[in-house]
C-alpha cells in the first residue's frame, strides 16, 4: 500500500488483526484449554486495543497539524508550530471560545494516548468500536474547519 493511511484503513486492519487474536481466544474457550492461555490471549487483545488507540489518535493529530499549518501566514510561524508542544498546535488549529469543548475533548484523548504510548495504561480495556465511531466524528469536525479555512482563503502563501 502506498500513500496516506486513513482512519478507514485502520478500521479494516483492526478488524482483520483482532479477528485472528479473538479466534484463538475463542478456540481457547472452545477446547477448554488452560485458563492461563486464555488470560494471555486476553492480554494480547488489550495491548492491541491500546496500540490501535494510539494509531487512531495519530490520525486526528495529523489532521490537527495540517489545520494549524494552514492557519499560519509565515514560513517562520509554520516552522515553529511544527516543533511546538501538542497543546499549542491544538490551540492554533482550533482557536477561540467556539472550539473550547472540542479542544477539551481532544486534549483528553491526547493524555490517554500519551499514557498508552509511554507504556502506561496498557491494561486499560477499550471498546474500540465506540472509539472508531467517535474518532470519525472528531475527524469530521476538524476537517470541516480545514475546509472552511480553505474557502476563506487562509491557505498559506
Amino acid at each position: 500500500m502506498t500513500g496516506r493511511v486513513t482512519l478507514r484503513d485502520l478500521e479494516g486492519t483492526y478488524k482483520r488483526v483482532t479477528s485472528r487474536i479473538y479466534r484463538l481466544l475463542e478456540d481457547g474457550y472452545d477446547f477448554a484449554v488452560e485458563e492461563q492461555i486464555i488470560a494471555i490471549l486476553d492480554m494480547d487483545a488489550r495491548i492491541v486495543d491500546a496500540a490501535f488507540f494510539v494509531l487512531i489518535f495519530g490520525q486526528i493529530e495529523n489532521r490537527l497539524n495540517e489545520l494549524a499549518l494552514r492557519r499560519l501566514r509565515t514560513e517562520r510561524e509554520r516552522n515553529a508550530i511544527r516543533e511546538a508542544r501538542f497543546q499549542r498546535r491544538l490551540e492554533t488549529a482550533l482557536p477561540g471560545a467556539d472550539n473550547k469543548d472540542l479542544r477539551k475533548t481532544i486534549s483528553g484523548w491526547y493524555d490517554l494516548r500519551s499514557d498508552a504510548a509511554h507504556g502506561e495504561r496498557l491494561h486499560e480495556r477499550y471498546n474500540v468500536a465506540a472509539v472508531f465511531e467517535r474518532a470519525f466524528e472528531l475527524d469530521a469536525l476538524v476537517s470541516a474547519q480545514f475546509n472552511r479555512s480553505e474557502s476563506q482563503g487562509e491557505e498559506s502563501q
Partner: protein
Amino acid sequence: MDGNIVDATIAEAREKPDKDHVLARLQDWQNRVHALYDTVQKALGPKYVYDRTGKNEPREEMVQRVGLEPGEVPKLDVLKITQNDRQLALFTPRSLWMIGANGQVDILVTAKSGGRRLYNLIDRSLPLSKNPDWRIVRPADRLHQPPFRPDTLADLLI
C-alpha cells in the same frame, strides 16, 4: 457526564478518583447487571434453571485506587443457566471501567457437542445514566455491536 461514551470515559479515567463516585458507579453496575439477568430469565422462561448463588467481587484498579475494602464493594451475581443438569450458559461480569463502554459481561455458552463459545455483552450507555444500552458482540468481530435482544438468547443455547 459528557454526551459521548468515549469522551465521558476518557474524562473519568483522567480524573482523580473519588470514593463516593466509585461506590455510586459500583452500585449502579450491580443494579444494571442484576436487571439484565432478570430480563434474561424472564425472556427465556421456566424451561431453564437459573442459579445466581455464585458471586463476583470487582477488584478493578479504580476500586483499589480509592482504597475500598472487599466488604465495601457491592457483589455481583454470576448467572448460571442449566437444563437437565447440563450447564448451558454462564454470565460473568468482566469489567466496569472501560474506555468507550459502561461495562462488559461475558457469556460463556456450552454447546451440546461440549465446546464453549464466548460472547460479550457491552453496555454503551453513559455512566450513571440509568438507561442501559446492551450490545452483543462476538469477540472475533468486535466492531459489529448489534443491540442485545434477550428473546434471541434461546437460539444460542441450542
